[in-house]
């Protein structure tokens, strides 16, 4: 092992030490949770939860594998999910793996070569993605072995890890290359937008694949190898299964060859110049903060939040959005999802006027999933921050914690949720041209998403930016939310005729929503008042 590392220009002992420490730190940060359980117990619970979650996904994939005889369809579905899961994890949890200058402050002056340092960061990401792939793939792999034989099973295992590696490499290579091309400072400022673009690619690719595979594939349980399909990277790895199953022809051989070539090229690219001057680029990123940049003219926290705790929180949230890439990304990551859902809605026959469509039973479009998900993405973004140690001000100042927590929720509603709903309203208006109907629909969506946000605050009433960031759990939570909110949206869809079928129905639902909002507000107040007394600074 040492010889291989030495040949690659990596100091094995340093690489091992750095990788282990990074994993240890991630685990500790992930379990830095206040609870009546010990940190270790919480850490194990978190891991078990993730194993169960990915296993359930794996079970679903194993069933698909068992049912279909078309190895190309099976492979494409399996690899599509791997790409989606690994891509989401790298984008959400490990987006700063290569671009964070934090380590540089600790290691920059140590005798660690650029290549060793880079390899340790890369290994850190790959440990997560490989573990995730293993847990997600063991059931479908078993299904492949039993249903399709040893050769296909082995090809499946190779495809799983190849596809996982390809996805992680491709995203990290993208970041690294951008850092080289646009410079550290520009990338730092643009990072959240780069991430948005990559998110769009990952989610979009996933949905594009499902659309393309969609009706025809499900009807016949086969997937045609169109040229368009073969542009989708998961199909390259799916070809392994076909080859192992006896498939021949250029539509099978070429994609498999492309997958290997792409992996080699990415590995070469990452191990080559990107790793050679990695330290220099990180140094650039670290020192870019030294350049004097005046803040934009202070616009103030807005007329809605004029005094005391509300003004303080508004000031802080606005500033964090401007400067904290994690927070900005946490907020903006709803946009690619929304656009994908809009595109899917349009491709499903357009976004209908909810009142008119109610008669046909499709008052709530897929966009509802995004609207209901948004608050659940906002809450962790608002609570967890790398600046959590600075939250001592909320503990040492005479601020009313109940007001701080409620203000944080209100600020998020005013700054992010309301504009987002306006954006959704504009999309609906474009398709429906009925202002009144759209206003009512958006008001109802607003009440629902506000209710969801209240629910999250009630469950976990925390001061803003007061808890450390977590590695490894966010992407799982995001994917679980996508599934759960999809179910909620489905329920709303089912009740759509009742809600929009008559004025009385609509008014009743509004009444229930407002009532629920008031009840949740009272519950939150009681819980926060009780919990606020026991909150202690953890920095």
């Amino acid at each position: 092992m040492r010889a291989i590392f030495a040949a690659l220009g990596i100091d094995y002992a340093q690489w091992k030490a750095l990788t282990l420490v990074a994993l240890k730190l991630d685990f500790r940060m992930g379990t830095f949770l206040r609870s009546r359980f010990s940190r270790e117990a919480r850490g194990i619970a978190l891991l078990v939860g993730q194993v169960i979650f990915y296993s359930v996904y794996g079970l679903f994939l194993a069933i698909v594998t068992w049912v279909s005889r078309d190895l190309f369809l099976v492979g494409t579905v399996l690899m599509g999910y791997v790409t989606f899961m690994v891509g989401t994890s790298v984008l959400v949890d490990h987006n700063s793996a290569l671009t964070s200058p934090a380590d540089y402050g600790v290691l920059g002056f140590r005798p660690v070569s650029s290549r060793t340092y880079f390899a340790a960061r890369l290994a850190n990401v790959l440990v997560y993605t490989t573990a995730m792939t293993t847990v997600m793939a063991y059931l479908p792999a078993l299904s492949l072995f039993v249903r399709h034989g040893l050769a296909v099973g082995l090809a499946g295992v190779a495809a799983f890890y190849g596809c996982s590696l390809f996805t992680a490499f491709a995203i990290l290579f993208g970041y690294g290359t951008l850092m080289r091309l646009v410079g550290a400072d520009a990338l730092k400022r643009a990072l959240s937008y780069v991430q948005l673009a990559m998110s769009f690619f990952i989610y979009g690719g996933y949905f594009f694949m499902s659309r393309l595979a969609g009706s025809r594939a499900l009807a016949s349980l086969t997937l045609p190898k169109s040229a368009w399909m073969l542009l989708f990277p998961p199909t390259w790895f799916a070809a392994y299964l076909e080859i192992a199953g006896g498939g021949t022809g250029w539509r099978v051989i070429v994609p498999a060859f492309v997958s290997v070539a792409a992996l080699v090229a990415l590995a070469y690219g990452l191990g080559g110049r990107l790793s050679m001057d990695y330290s220099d680029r990180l140094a650039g990123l670290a020192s870019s903060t030294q350049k004097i940049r005046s803040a934009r003219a202070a616009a103030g926290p807005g007329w809605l939040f004029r005094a005391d705790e509300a003004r303080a929180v508004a000031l802080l949230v606005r500033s964090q959005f401007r400067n904290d890439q994690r927070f900005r990304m946490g907020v903006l990551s709803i946009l690619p999802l929304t656009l994908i859902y809009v595109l899917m809605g349009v491709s499903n026959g357009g976004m209908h006027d909810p009142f008119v469509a109610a008669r046909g039973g499709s008052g709530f479009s897929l966009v509802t999933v995004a609207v209901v998900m948004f608050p659940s993405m906002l809450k962790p973004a608002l609570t967890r921050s790398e600046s959590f140690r600075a939250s001592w001000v909320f503990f040492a100042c005479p601020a009313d914690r109940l007001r701080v927590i409620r203000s944080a929720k209100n600020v998020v509603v005013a700054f992010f949720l309301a504009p987002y709903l306006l954006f959704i309203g504009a999309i609906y208006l474009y398709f429906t041209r009925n202002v009144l109907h759209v206003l009512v629909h958006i008001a109802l969506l607003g009440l629902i998403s506000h209710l969801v946000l209240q629910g999250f605050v009630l469950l976990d009433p925390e001061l803003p930016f007061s808890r450390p960031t977590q590695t490894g759990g966010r992407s799982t939570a995001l994917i679980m939310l996508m599934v759960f909110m999809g179910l909620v949206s489905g329920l709303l869809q089912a009740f759509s005729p009742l809600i929009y079928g008559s004025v009385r129905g609509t008014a009743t639902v509004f009444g229930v929503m407002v009532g629920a909002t008031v009840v949740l507000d009272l519950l939150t107040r009681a819980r926060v008042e009780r919990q606020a007394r026991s909150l202690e600074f953890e920095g």
Partner: protein
Amino acid sequence: MIQTEHLSKSFDAKLALVDLTMAVEPGEILGFLGPNGAGKSTTVKILTGMIRATSGRAVVAGFDIATEPLEVKKRIGYVPETAALYDGLTAAEYLELIGCLHHLDPKTTATRRGELLELFGLGDVQHQRMTEFSKGMRQKVLIASALIHRPDVLFLDEPLDGLDANAAAVVKELLKKLAAQGKTILFCSHILEVVERICTRILIVNGGRQVTSGTAAEIRAATGTATLEEAFSRLTGVRDVGQVASDFLSALEKA
């Protein structure tokens, strides 16, 4: 102004502070000393209401910290040991945030923050984000944030950390003048010369327990030492420092 009775704090099984009883009067600057992990920061965090004591009682500015924490917090200023602040904010915005949390009206906050930042030499950079600030500049912002609401009691945990010699001199003089005005100051530091020079009284803790209290002269006399540094070493259980240094050297040579 600051009074504790049998104050204790434990984190799980670890005792961080044991039975601390002390009083600091208005106009006093108490040098609160102890080796690393002695319980200084824990005491300060309890007295500022950031964490709760396991047992005992603490009264700050006339209010019990356990039952009336907000009343206490209105009257105290705090400079934490770690210079943690929301560095995405500008210095002006940060002080505005603190002003809001202390319920100062925006005009008063604006006036005072301007004055304080000018006094600390940060007037020109007050609209720059603090990510670009040096450690000393951040420390100045923290000190300004501890003073902006004109507190009666100040808790300063290594307030001179990172400050240049001129700024440190200004802060030392400022503390003396604030004490002369009747403010109560609890001053934690590892720089014993500074403590000896500006503190009216010294309290030393070790292993979470109070080991002595008195003026610097009283402590020197009680321990039979010539300097506060020697007294501190003796009281906190360190053997002859020269011998310890020699042991270090031998260990390094062996390795």
